[in-house]
């Protein structure tokens, strides 16, 4: 086949919703876009372990401690599925981690905000995992097969996390005065960063059109953001919390909530590295990786020695047989 016919075949697969598999031909830019997106997603899972990991040792009850620990562990598992999916595109996990540590690869900016109180564990589960679900459910049908399959597993667990987070918020909102205050304070701090998670407005999102054409993306940033706001505002009301946006108003005509201006200046600054915890998060990852170097080396050395030993034993066996 010529490059042209390869391209035609690929276009047909996309057109007919046949998933692209690792052995299929794909345009270079499609591959690059996927590597960028999947690795960024994997990094987000791993860096995302840090703000919540903060509270495992301080959780207020044994049950909450177990639930939180299991949740953060799930996020590690998501990272694992996603790194594996990205590896099918011809990049190694070590290379991706190197890109994270050098700052070349990004991760979701939401994790550059600090977790200050226990209520943040509720707010993150409810809002951040909630926003992640909105983003990720359509990805279960994304055109690249391994990514889509990884997302099916991830989404199941994310919706569990979202419910657990909401339940923490509900417990606080039904609790004492100080607990209510804690819940409201967390919502105040996490609301805007959460709705920024959907990325820049469609007008300022250069990759969106191409990604939609390739059916990597199915909905635009603004569509998903609106959907999230519509759902979440109702959930806040249900537990008596106030969304910190004075311009939030139901619009009969559109059937959606109108909302206030997003602070894009803050958004771009956090992306650029000026968020409250960018440095700490990256340093924590680098530290874990560097301090673990001798452990990984030892594991590799032992595996190689064991392999040699096994080969030698087999040889001896076949010689004596």
């Amino acid at each position: 086949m010529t490059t042209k016919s390869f391209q035609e075949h690929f276009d047909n697969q996309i057109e007919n919703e046949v998933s692209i598999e690792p052995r299929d031909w794909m345009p270079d830019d499609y591959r690059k876009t996927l590597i960028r997106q999947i690795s960024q997603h994997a990094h987000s899972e791993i860096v995302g372990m840090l703000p919540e990991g903060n509270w495992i040792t301080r959780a207020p009850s044994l049950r909450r401690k177990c639930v939180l620990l299991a949740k953060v562990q799930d996020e590690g598992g998501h990272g694992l599925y996603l790194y594996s999916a990205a590896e099918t595109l011809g990049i190694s996990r070590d290379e991706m981690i190197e890109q994270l540590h050098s700052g070349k690869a990004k991760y979701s900016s939401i994790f550059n905000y600090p977790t200050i109180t226990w209520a943040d564990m509720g707010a993150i589960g409810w809002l951040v995992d909630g926003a992640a679900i909105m983003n990720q459910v359509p990805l279960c049908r994304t055109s690249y097969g391994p990514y889509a399959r990884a997302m099916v597993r991830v989404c199941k667990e994310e919706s569990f996390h979202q419910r657990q987070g909401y339940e923490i918020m509900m417990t606080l909102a039904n609790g004492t005065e100080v607990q209510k205050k804690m819940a409201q304070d967390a919502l105040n701090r996490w609301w805007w960063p959460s709705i920024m998670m959907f990325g820049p407005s469609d007008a300022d999102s250069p990759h969106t059109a191409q990604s939609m054409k390739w059916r990597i993306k199915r909905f635009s940033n603004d569509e998903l953001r609106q959907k999230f706001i519509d759902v979440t505002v109702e959930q806040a009301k249900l537990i008596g919390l106030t969304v910190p946006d004075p311009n939030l108003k139901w619009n009969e005509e559109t059937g959606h909530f109108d909302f206030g201006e997003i602070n894009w200046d803050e958004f771009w600054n956090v992306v650029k590295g000026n968020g409250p915890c960018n440095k700490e998060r990256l340093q924590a990852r680098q530290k874990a990786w560097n301090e673990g170097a001798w452990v990984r080396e030892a594991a590799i050395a032992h595996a190689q020695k064991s392999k040699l030993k096994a080969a030698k034993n087999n040889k001896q066996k076949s010689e004596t047989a």
Partner: protein
Amino acid sequence: MATVQIDNTTFQLLHFTLQWADNALINGHRLSEWCGHGPVLEQDIALSNIALDHIGQARSLYQYAASICNNFDSEIRQQLFASTALNQKISKGELIDEDDLAYLRDAWDFRNTLLVEQPNSDWAFTVARSFYFDTFNFFWLSSLQSSSDSVIAAIAEKSLKEVNYHLRWSSEWIIRLGDGTMESHQRIQDALNDRWSFTGELFQPTEADIAMLSMGVGVDLSRIKQQWLDRIHAVLNEATLIMPTSVWMQEGGKQTRHSEHLGYLLAEMQFMQRAYPNMQW
């Protein structure tokens, strides 16, 4: 307040259960500190799993301990612990639960061994601590499966399935590090030597251990000490590591005399319950 005579057997059963529960909680808490910071993602996940098992075991045991406490007369219940917060609850006639035992006692009411409260330090020290403890835990639980106390026997049986995996995990890491590189060999040998002095206490019977053994509830620590030594020796041998030789052993944790580390651990772990008391979470 006049001291009321306490039923000694039940009192010893309580201490016995708390010894075990505190080991599980403190070990699980220490391991959970690794979450998000492991040397490689798969191991981060494995350690979280093991931490979860331990905290889960602690919960079952604290529930049992709480039920033992709640069965004492109220006057006796107020003499069980030094904690003001706990005693206030009891004096109001409230029943205590697993969280009260985990979050409201101070270090001088904790009965875990010194070994498990030692800091993670690095991967080698964590593996060494886990290896010593998991091996102990394996023989401890194996023996407790036939305890005459049916609750204890049931918790032991359920936990043993998990601890089988823990022991395999830590033994494999001992072998991997011992056999791996020169650096890893040296690091794990140093860690094993250093943590060795905390292992004697595992087999030092307390009053509670002795009382429970005589009733068929507990464990013959001198018997499992030999099993423990044999197993440690076999694994270290395979790992080309040397059995530590120092004879001086640290002790005190089981008698509620702890190292400095436990106070800091509890300050962090109990912070929410201390700063925001008497709330539902």
